[in-house]
């Protein structure tokens, strides 16, 4: 066990995956010599050489396109989009190509690639350094979409993603790179070294994709969330002394429906939280799924708390971000209904 930040855990996952399998290659913008603008690939080039970890030209489509070609050859590329907000130029390669290659070729070819991307807000990044585009991936058959919330999961899930036989989109909420952000931006940052999920086992372990984690058990209501908001939800529940069961979904597709249903059947109430804009966000899918599967158990409407339907604003970040105040109020609303 070592206390690690999420950045360190991600670095460690890369190291281990690259050591175990020489087909694993890592590249992206500023990823090689510099080790990435968030330093998630620091040390890889030094350790494995610039044939295994290297810089790419600034062209996200070229990065993912080349990764698909490499994967078709037999490698296991793990590439970085510098920010999730900059994945759009690669969207065609991800959606039309990586996601569909196995199916359209009936298994003749496949694209086992990982596309990592720092996502989410909370760092005053403005509209192009704050987005959470997960719903744009969850709608695409053939993609596995992961959102991590802590160092322990990040390491185990990234290793699993690299080992997976199919393309995995791997979102890393940058606000929790260095600590479990509780949503109170005006309070000092708590480091991961003070948090149990910052304790990361040494060496190899993989967390199966498609399994949610019950972050906090409770019986009054179920909170379905992922990424940064796992910690915000916990804060809100603690602050208002609400016995909330908080489920960190970890993998959005395939979704761990059993864990969700079990919890909602128990609590009868459900709150769905994410940072992305609310309309057609992944929360809509969660709400629809819970409604379909737990209709007769629901004692109150499922409520969504999410980013507003506006671009992520720079100065009004904390009015946009679903913080403990908004989340806590919503919990009470769900309980009162």
């Amino acid at each position, binding site marked *: 066990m070592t206390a690690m930040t999420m950045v360190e855990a991600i670095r460690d996952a890369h190291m281990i995956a690259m050591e175990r399998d020489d087909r694993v290659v890592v590249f992206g913008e500023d990823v090689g010599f510099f080790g990435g603008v968030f330093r998630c690939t620091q040390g890889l080039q030094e350790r494995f050489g610039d044939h295994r970890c290297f810089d790419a030209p600034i062209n996200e489509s070229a990065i993912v*396109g080349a990764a698909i070609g490499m994967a078709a*050859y037999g490698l296991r590329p793990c590439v970085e989009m510098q920010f999730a907000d900059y994945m759009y130029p690669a969207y065609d390669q991800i959606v039309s190509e990586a996601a569909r290659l196995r199916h359209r070729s009936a298994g003749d070819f496949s694209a086992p690639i990982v596309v990592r991307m720092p996502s989410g807000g909370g760092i005053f990044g403005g509209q192009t350094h704050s987005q959470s585009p997960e719903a744009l991936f969850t709608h695409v058959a053939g993609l596995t979409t992961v959102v991590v919330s802590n160092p322990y999961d990040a390491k185990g899930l990234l290793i699993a993603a690299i080992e997976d036989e199919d393309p995995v989109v791997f979102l890393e909420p940058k606000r929790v790179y260095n600590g479990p952000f509780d949503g109170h931006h005006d309070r000092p940052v708590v480091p991961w070294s003070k948090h149990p999920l910052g304790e990361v086992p040494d060496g190899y372990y993989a967390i199966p994709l498609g399994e949610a984690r019950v972050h906090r058990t409770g019986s009054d209501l179920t909170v379905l969330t992922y990424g940064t908001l796992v910690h915000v939800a916990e804060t809100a529940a603690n602050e208002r002394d609400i016995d909330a069961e908080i489920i960190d979904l970890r993998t959005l597709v395939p979704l761990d429906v059993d864990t969700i249903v079990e919890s909602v059947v128990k609590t009868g109430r459900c709150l769905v939280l994410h940072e992305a804009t609310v309309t057609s966000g992944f929360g809509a899918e969660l709400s629809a799924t819970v409604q379909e599967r737990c209709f007769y158990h629901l004692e109150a409407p499922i409520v969504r708390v999410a980013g507003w339907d506006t671009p992520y604003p720079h100065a009004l970040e904390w009015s946009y971000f679903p913080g403990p105040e908004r989340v806590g109020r919503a919990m009470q609303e769900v309980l009162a209904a």
Partner: protein
Amino acid sequence: MKKPALDEKVERVALMRKQLVRVLDDDGSAVGEWVPDLSADAKIAGLRDMMTVRSFDARMLRAHRQGKISFYMQALGEEAIACAQQRALRPGDMHFPTYRQQGLLIAAGYPIVQMMNQILSNEQDPLKGRQLPVLYSAKSHGFFSISGNLATQYPQAVGWAMASAMRGDTAIASAWIGEGASAENDFHAALVMASTYQAPVILNIVNNHWAISTPEDFARGASATFADRGYGFSIPAIRVDGNDYLAAYAASQWAAERARSNLGPTLIEWITLRRGAHSTSDDPSVYRPEHESEQFPLADPVERLRQHLVALGEWDDDRHRDLQHEIDTEIESAFAEADSHGSVKSGVVPSPATMFDDVYAELPRHLREQRDQVGE
């Protein structure tokens, strides 16, 4: 035209951007520095490949008119390029084709009946009825799965080539694109990567002068040639008579050797003409000048190779007629076999449950549930 050394400076090769590599002259003689070292048998094999493509295309168009298939795209007039390049490359190399390179499969000896099964989307379709006709996939024959989305294969080919180089392998990749699709953004993605990492890849642009209804000028813009694009990245770029089987073989071989010798990417602009419609959904009479095909200066590739073989004393009308008959019979019986396995039109297609396979390597729970609903 001069044939440059494999490692010739790009500035010198650059001059060839606006010239045209040719081997076969108007009388069918093979002349100049680019004459490839090919036996008469190899040339006859090339003729057979091209004639097979043509016969195959004709049969499939007929099948479409007969209402047996939903869609087809022929390569009429462009057969030499893919057929010759396939023979110039090696097993283990990987092509990243468009929908107009059936010649690659045929010249590689891929089973004709399998191609037809794919086109019919029948029970034996290797792609299980998932893809539009002609969007083949054949890893075993060095043929990457064709995408419906233009240009995406171009950077993928570069990535494949980079991977081969990274692993110390000598296999190379070959990327294919139409002149119209070279306007797509991913064309740039590929050239940037190929230039930066000096990937062992051939970047083919098939300039058949049309992109559906739009003449080549819209993609080319003000530059004189598509080969110019390569020069913008210091990627050696040549223009080749795409209706000249021997030139197509020689140029492909030259580019392949450059790649295999770690001399990096080569761009080839192939000059040819789309003689037919874009696809069976297209009606070119609305936009296309009459008599364009007859007026095109580069003569038919099958005719030119045949003429060359006749001039060599290796071919005559009888042998040609026999070969044509043999090929047509082969195609006809392949189609009879394929047709017996049903088709999308007859409704004899793979079972609906198969639709859920291969979305992922393993069937996840939600797809299992959905599959069960289809079964209902």
